[in-house]
């Protein structure tokens, strides 16, 4: 019973961290249909901005917010000068965001060097409950992830802005007939997705080694999360996808080695794509 509980807690922690990492991609991909290959670089930038700010004496929370704002600003510039001219051409946006990834990775190396960097864990320690343990910081990150997803849900389903965005996503043509500023809404969504990626990179940075490739670890997994969860299913899809890609590994690892567990997970992902190409939550 104890083991079952602690496996459940572990898998929830992983699920929420993965969901956090994938959220920016899910927003941009799910709402706009833009395949943001620069997502990994945005995570990396968020982590480096946090590292840089904390080494300059900025308190951790402020550094995280600065990192999110900084990556959001980079997203704004990227959208304004490049991406917005290519919204009707998905393949071009894919290549352009890939280019952004390459360039920003090289710039990170030049600006911050290639040494291993570390962001000190702002909440060391863990809560012990019998045989299972809740690492304090990771638990807070999981809660923030949950809060972001709930908050995004409330925003999308309960506010005027959210209704506008959902309308726009379904039918930009009709939305513009109703006087909605489509270009501005796209810009808003792209910046929000970028800032979410920056925030995720910032929050993940104390758990991982900060190097120029930190975002890559999550990039492929994030794509699987979004695709398995279902393109356009920003909220439920991201959570279900994160559980299948991250959380379920914990269960498989009970019966097999880690390598086998990860392999099973990716095989399942491929099976999902084969038989439910629109994602787990979508019937067709």
């Amino acid at each position, binding site marked *: 019973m104890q083991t079952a509980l602690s496996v459940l807690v572990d898998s929830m922690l992983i699920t929420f961290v993965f969901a956090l990492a994938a959220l920016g991609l899910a927003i941009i991909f799910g709402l706009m249909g833009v395949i943001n290959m620069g997502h990994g670089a945005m995570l990396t930038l968020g982590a480096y901005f946090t590292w840089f700010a904390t080494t300059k004496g900025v308190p951790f929370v402020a550094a995280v917010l600065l990192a999110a704002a900084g990556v959001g600003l980079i997203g704004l510039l990227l959208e304004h000068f490049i991406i917005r001219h290519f919204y009707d051409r998905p393949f071009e946006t894919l290549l352009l965001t890939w280019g952004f990834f390459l360039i920003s990775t090289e710039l990170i190396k030049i600006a911050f060097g290639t040494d291993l960097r570390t962001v000190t864990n702002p909440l060391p320690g863990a809560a012990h409950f019998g045989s299972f343990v809740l690492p304090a910081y990771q638990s807070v990150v999981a809660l923030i992830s949950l809060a972001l997803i709930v908050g995004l849900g409330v925003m999308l389903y309960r506010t*005027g802005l959210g*209704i506008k965005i959902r*309308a726009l996503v*379904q039918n930009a043509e*009709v*939305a513009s*007939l109703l*006087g*909605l500023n489509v270009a501005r809404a796209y810009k808003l969504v792209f910046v929000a997705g970028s800032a979410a990626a920056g925030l995720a990179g910032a929050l993940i940075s104390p758990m991982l080694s900060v190097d120029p490739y930190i975002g890559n670890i999550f990039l492929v997994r994030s794509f699987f999360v979004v695709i398995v969860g279902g393109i356009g299913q920003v909220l439920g899809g991201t959570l279900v996808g994160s559980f299948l890609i991250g959380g379920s590994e914990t269960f498989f690892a009970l019966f097999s080695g880690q390598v086998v567990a990860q392999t099973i997970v990716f095989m399942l992902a491929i099976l999902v794509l084969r038989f439910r190409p629109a994602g787990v939550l979508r019937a067709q």
Partner: protein
Amino acid sequence: MSDAGTLLAVHDLCVAYGRSQVLFNVGLTAPHRGGVAVLGRNGAGKTTLMKTIIGELRNKSGSVRFAGREITQLATEQRVRLGLGYVPQEHGVFARLSVRDNLTVGALGGRRHDGIERALAIFPKLGQRLGQTAGTLSGGERKMLAIGRALLGEPKLLLLDEPTEGVWVGVIDEIADRLRALAQEIAVVIVEQHLQLALSVADQAYVLDRGRVALVGPSAEIRDDPRLLQYLAP
């Protein structure tokens, strides 16, 4: 030249899709109040004219003036904010949004933020469907929703593309009543296959033939013009 009674003035309009020209030197005016019908067989250029007025298509030459202002350079949403409304022929509703959310989007786009009640006053049937997703509505209800939602934006002129297409015959009269009442208050430009309905809403009628204005005149005269059937025959 600007007539104080003219809200919309289309002048010498030419539109092409790539190399194939669809509209040739089309002119059309609409007053501040009352209906204008645009008739013609399939492919005559009626929808193209509508889409050019609202800004989804760009014209090659000619002008579109609305409320005394040249608008051919404006984006669609800017034209909408000036007071143009458009109910397209199909895909006019957000199928995955609820009826309430569909109406809310219309209200948000407009200048008056007094909610969705006015649309429900015009089409009371929608009131029973507020929680349903728009994709589950019948054809007639979808048209009501699209028209009601467009009206929430407080348009001075409403462009209607086939408002009764795909609508069950029993509901057509209800829509027609509302459109006639609407034409008493604002300008309505209606493209419609249903000839009697169109002419009952409109005071003035234009007949397009292969991209050109073939006939123009008061609805009563056009109705009796012997050439009308020739232009509408398939």
